[in-house]
């Protein structure tokens, strides 16, 4: 379950920010998670409360913004939205799709006080 280490990575980022910015508590964390990234949002939600316990983000609310997968067909140039890495081009049926977006895993914003 690599979501556990990724969630610990989120906490590292929060703690680094707390050192540089003047806040005591994190109330809400917004993550941007691409549909084609390595994160299963449910798994991350599952770990979140445990990882944040007794930290500056103890009890914080997690909001995951899922971004769609995007790809460009190598054969016909069509840009398309995809939901998995085994998708095919809707126009020409080719499997040669290059992923152009939707693989991000990012801490986007924090609500702090």
């Amino acid at each position, binding site marked *: 379950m690599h979501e556990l*280490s990724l969630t610990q990575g989120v906490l590292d980022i929060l703690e680094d920010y707390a050192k540089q910015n003047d806040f005591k508590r994190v*109330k809400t964390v917004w993550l941007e998670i691409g549909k084609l990234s390595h994160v299963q949002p449910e798994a991350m939600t599952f770990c979140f409360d445990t990882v944040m316990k007794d930290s500056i983000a103890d009890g914080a609310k997690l909001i995951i913004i899922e971004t769609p997968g995007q790809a460009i067909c190598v054969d016909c140039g069509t840009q398309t939205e995809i939901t998995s890495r085994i998708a095919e081009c809707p126009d020409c049926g080719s499997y040669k799709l290059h992923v152009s977006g939707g693989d991000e*895993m990012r801490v986007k*914003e*924090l*609500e702090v006080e």
Partner: protein
Amino acid sequence: MCTVCGCGTSKIEDGHTHNHDHDHSHDHSHHHHHHGDMHFGENDAGVSVPGMDEKRIIAIEQDILGKNDHLAAHNRDHFKAAGIFALNLVSSPGSGKTTLLTRTIEDLKSDLPIAVIEGDQQTANDADRIRATGVAALQVNTGKGCHLDADMIAQAIHRMEMPNDGVMFIENVGNLVCPAAFDLGEAHKVAILSVTEGEDKPIKYPDMFAAADIMILTKIDLLPYLNFDVAACMDYARRVNPDLKIFQLSSTNGEGLEAWYDWIKSGVATAKS
């Protein structure tokens, strides 16, 4: 402080702070602007609103794997400076990573400096198998961890003698999911798939075959005993990753090893540039 690039242990870009009205609901307002500066609400001019329970929104835009990727970039610099061709071997448990490594080492150790970092949750069995070939190996036990990360590799390479102008093999924890996310600083991620696992593994675990740029189909000596469709397997793999380079080999009878060795040697020759 890092000696290679002079950075601190973590690198954080400046966040933009915006003050907020407490009652304002962020859930609705923060969807639309996703590039650069973010502005919430109407009269948001960066004015600080004093108050005991003042709430603020900070836009930080940090990659969750930023720290790992930064360390991986350092490892990559280290490898490059020493002319080392580093390969990150990933597969499900028992696909044949260690067997391929011991065979490769036996066949190449007189031509090239080689060292191995072995990742497993427990035991030093695999490192012992490598050391039996006479090559240096460092075992990294991840405990409950399901993958190696760049920090573990950074620590490992400072603790062992580096195979300058040769090859560093990194055998990742047997797991076809988690190691896909973590760059270690390798030149290539090599996904190993054995013919006993079924030809549809690449589409069942697409993230790994998308993250790798090399695939090795191994244990091909067993093909006569199985119903394994090699062409379908390669087709599935290229469906996930059109640019995948594929080797077919057997660590047991040696079939197909020459092409793999030639590729390693040409990788070593260009590792420094």
